[in-house]
């Protein structure tokens, strides 16, 4: 097993919590650690869990209203005066609507603004395709200077938020709405730019991010019983990508599956395919949204419908290893 002090995810000890809740806690901790940490939100303060920061530091919270372009450009200005802004909305709106402002006034202008997109992914559920942000990883990953973080559970989101407050680069932090299994513990390491082997193996590499790392771990346990040794590489930092860890694992297993709640074009799957294609061509299957939008439904139904489950990982892994 991994020595990363993970939680026991098998059995009745499993706890769940929305990833965004960890962000809310982490932001308060970051605010306590540094008085220059400030927050702004576009009329979704409770949904994005910024209400915790607002309650603790009302004078350091800025309400923007439903104006996502203003949200990130105001943050650029605050950062210019030495603040460390976190700005939140639903990912469909920020960075969905304000990409150019993020590009020009944050990335090119090199200001340490942390853009936080909540309710990302297909698991937003019944709200439907308009609100299921699936392209955010792609449009943030392509920006020079931008760090892209997709935590795997609420505890990792809490640690990532604190780490981002201490990092001087612009960033995008992607959060999910639904309660998600807690796979880490307070002692599990998190560093910006690092990928972690959550489950060591030798036959196939499963590279996952966000809510899908739980599915990858469940799949790895099942595959073990079937005699297939799967290595789960959890990638909370999509950019800068931990190329060393990914290349080493792919070299060892020679089979790679990626899985994410996002478009594989430009997403984690895109990033890994680019890396392997250039440095170490490897058989790869990418699970995620495949150039189409989502639709309304219950979160679990949608994950099943679009093939984002441990079951699908197992099917593909079994097939690939037997090829």
């Amino acid at each position, binding site marked *: 097993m991994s020595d990363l002090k993970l939680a026991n995810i098998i059995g009745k000890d499993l706890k769940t919590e929305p990833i965004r809740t960890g962000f809310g806690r982490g932001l308060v901790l970051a605010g306590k650690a540094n008085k220059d940490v*400030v927050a702004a939100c576009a009329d979704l303060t409770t949904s994005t869990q910024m209400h915790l920061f607002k309650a603790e530091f009302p*004078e*350091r919270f*800025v309400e*923007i*209203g439903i*104006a996502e*372009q*203003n949200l990130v*450009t*105001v*943050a*650029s*200005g*605050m*950062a*210019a*005066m*030495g*603040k460390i*802004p976190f700005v939140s909305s639903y990912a469909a709106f920020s960075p969905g609507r304000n990409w*150019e*402002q993020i590009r*020009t*006034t944050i990335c*090119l*202008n*090199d200001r340490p603004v942390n853009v936080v997109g909540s309710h990302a992914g297909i698991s937003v559920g019944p709200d439907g395709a308009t609100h299921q942000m699936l392209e955010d990883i792609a449009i943030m990953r392509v920006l020079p200077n931008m760090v892209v973080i997709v935590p795997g559970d609420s505890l990792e989101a809490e640690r990532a938020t604190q780490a981002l407050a201490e990092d001087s680069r612009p960033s995008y932090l992607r959060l999910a709405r639904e309660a998600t299994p807690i796979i880490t513990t307070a002692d599990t390491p998190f560093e910006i730019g690092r990928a972690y082997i959550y489950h060591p193996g030798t036959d196939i590499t499963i590279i996952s991010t966000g809510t899908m790392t739980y599915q990858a771990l469940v799949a790895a346990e099942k595959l073990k019983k079937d005699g297939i040794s799967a290595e789960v590489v959890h990638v909370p930092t999509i950019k800068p990508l931990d190329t060393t860890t990914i290349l080493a694992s792919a070299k060892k297993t020679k089979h790679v599956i990626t899985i994410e709640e996002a478009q594989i074009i430009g997403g984690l799957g895109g990033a890994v395919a680019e890396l392997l294609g250039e440095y170490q061509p490897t058989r790869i299957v990418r699970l995620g949204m495949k150039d189409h939008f989502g639709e309304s439904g219950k979160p679990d139904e949608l994950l099943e419908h679009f093939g984002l489950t441990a079951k699908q990982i197992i099917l593909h892994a079994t097939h690939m290893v037997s090829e």
Partner: protein
Amino acid sequence: MSTLSVEQLELQAEQIREDIIRMLEHAGSGHSAGPLGLADIFTALYFDVLKKDPKNPSWEERDILLLSNGHCAPVQYASMARAGYFDVAELMTLRKLGTRLQGHPERTKLPGLENTSGPLGCGLSQASGMAMAMRMNEEHHRWIYVVMGDGELDEGNVWEAAMFASKNKLSNIIGIIDRNNIQIDGPTESVMPLEDLKGKWVSFGWHVIEIDGNNVEAVIDACAMARAIIEKPIMIIAHTIPGKGVDFMEYDFNWHGAPPNHEQAIEALHDLRTLKGKIRSEHE
């Protein structure tokens, strides 16, 4: 604050206009009309209004100047060089590979620039964020000047900022609209009408001052008045003539995005020298 007389400031504005013509001719691309029209406003700002230290551009007590319509960068570069931020000779590197004087201003390349701009509509929002941070930091005696184009006001982002700054009574923001009535596709009132422009800003909760933006003294006076207003953010609508000072460019929207060629530059410089800084007179 300046020790220059109005006459000296007018001569300085003419010098900056000559710089703009030479820079644009040498670069072979760039915008002529806006920078020429803004020369008097930038002279007022860099040679009188702004609290600044060209030898220490990151001085903590400085006023902030944001050029929101970044395509007017030549007038800012020329003003900065003449004010002592860098050597005047560097102006001829405008738009050349490796230059600090990018086609549109990039903060990280040139000390003294406060923002990176070009895509329109962001300056007032950035100013609002700066003003909020200054309030948190209890810095009450710094002003943020934001120069915007009038065509730029088509951008929705501007009006998001207009609401935000008004809500928060960010009275240390002094916006200056270059009301030259042109944008790339033609006159502003045919592309997308802005009038009643004053009424729009008043209804958004701003204090509005209207001036002749080609009168250096009027610009200085308006900024002084703006600093005395503490209830609201302030918008100065500065009526200017696009291409001001060069006869064949004035009022012509075709010069918005074009540079002069060699012959046109010679004619333009002749026009400017003939004026000898007397641009103000026709407004009196």
